């Protein structure tokens, strides 16, 4: 039974963070935003970070993605520092907002990072790959459309195609579906799961949706605020492949209720402090 559960428990860590602390200085005052955060994500694993807003989820993701240097602690991605991993194009990033160029069509938006990363490749080669990626996310017919002509879900898929185009080993996503309505959100969840199963990438997803975290992840890291830290790394014992029926599985209900309790606990601690 455990063989169908990902991440494989004893696989070597693909992403490893040890005792990470982050301080921000605003107007001369130092605030600890992340305190002693450690986590490990196996290769091909799907891990979510969940927690109340302001608890440092985005900050942690930025540290893992090499966009922010931690004040102290060590981080490695695929055995190297995140900055080096980014340089080797091992990390793809998707933000909450699709962050597309409004003056370019979907195809050119997907090609945008490739044009810089693979400057030596021909324009045709890059366009071909961009078209392939759009097909992967089911948007081949929207290639010529500008972001303003696309729905929120479609924009987010373009943004995903752009990240996938560089063929990163790791996909880091910061509330990528946060701005979408409930139905589109679930569609995007199914879609992300499908991509993950097909491409075998390691995924770190920031979310504040309990259902989303439980439905998608092999493991959920529950965070609490003030200072930001990980309360518990909770494995989700729901077998993959997951689908509509997974929402009705007893294991899903067990996982979500435990997540809910943990989040409430974190909240109480904050108020008590």
């Amino acid at each position: 039974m455990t063989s169908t559960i990902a991440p494989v428990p004893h696989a070597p860590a693909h992403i490893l963070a040890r005792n990470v602390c982050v301080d921000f200085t605003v107007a001369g005052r130092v605030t600890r935003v992340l305190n002693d955060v450690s986590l490990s994500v196996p290769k091909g694993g799907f891990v979510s970070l969940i927690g109340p807003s302001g608890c440092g989820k985005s900050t942690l993701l930025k540290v893992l993605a090499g966009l922010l240097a931690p004040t102290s602690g060590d981080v490695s991605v695929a055995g190297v520092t995140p900055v080096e991993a980014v340089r080797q194009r091992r990390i793809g990033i998707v933000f909450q907002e699709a962050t597309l160029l409004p003056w370019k069509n979907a195809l050119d938006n997907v090609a945008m990072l490739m044009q810089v990363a693979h400057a030596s490749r021909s324009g045709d080669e890059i366009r071909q790959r961009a078209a392939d990626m759009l097909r992967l996310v089911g948007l081949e017919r929207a290639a010529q459309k500008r972001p303003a002509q696309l729905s929120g879900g479609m924009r987010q898929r373009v943004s995903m195609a752009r990240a996938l185009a560089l063929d990163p080993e790791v996909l880091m996503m910061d509330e990528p579906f946060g701005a979408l309505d409930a139905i589109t959100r679930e569609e995007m969840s199914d879609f992300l799961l499908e991509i993950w199963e097909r491409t075998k990438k390691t995924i770190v997803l920031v979310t504040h949706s309990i259902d989303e975290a439980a439905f998608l992840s092999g493991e959920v890291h529950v965070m609490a605020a003030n200072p930001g830290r990980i309360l518990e790394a909770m494995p989700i014992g729901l077998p993959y492949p997951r689908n509509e029926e997974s929402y009705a599985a007893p294991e899903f209900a067990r996982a979500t209720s435990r997540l809910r309790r943990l989040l409430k606990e974190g909240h109480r601690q904050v108020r008590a402090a």
Partner: protein
Amino acid sequence: MTATDNVTRVPANVDRAAANARMREVLARFMPPFVLLVGVIVVWEAVSRIFKVPEFVLPAPSTIVAVLIAHQRDLGYAAFVTAREVLWGFVLSGIIGAAVALVIARFATFGRALYPLVVLFQNVPKVALAPLFILWFGFDLAPKVVLIVVIAFFPVAINMLVGLQTVDSNLVALMRSVGASRNVILWRIQIPNSLPYLMAGLKVAVTLAVIGAIVGEFAGAQAGLGYMIQFASTQMQTALVFAALVEVSVLGMLFYYAIEWIERRYIDWMPHTA
């Protein structure tokens, strides 16, 4: 303008309905101000006839039209002179304004030194510099162009700077993550992002350019609509003053709508605010 232009791109059957719809839209937009304008002119004409207002105080619209026709060659030449000043001044304002913005955005340290000086300079009442420019550059084109530039480059620079600086920081982070240099980011993200802002600045600048040209001519000139207004008013030829004013307004509108046309034609990713 945009109507005819878009029509060429859609299939013929959609063509008609779309063109009609757009025509109605254009009518709905331009009818009310047009009706109001006609109303004002009619009342003005009636008042000056009924109360026999002396022509040197306020000439009737019909008199102004008659003067526009009678003096069309002089007025035409004056308009040409002024238009040339506006065009040169405006183009240079655009180039200098954009260059200032690019330098401030690209070279942070130098930008921090330059920016306050630019703002400080903006507080100098530049119209007061007009006589100085006449002194330095003569009575011809040059002093007007210089005056226009010092008046009109600022809105261009400030608007474009905002456009260069309000790029999505996540987008910049993504570009950095694949090794994009500052120049690449400037060229591929910041500059395109700034174009709608630049156009807004240019629209302000063109209006200021017309003012600059007229003020420049007031300060000293041998031709142009501003020169004509001043000359005619000393001769109490009030109808000619009004005729020149009409041409100034038409000139300003032509320049303004030319820019708006370019904006709609080439920068179509921003929703247009009327």
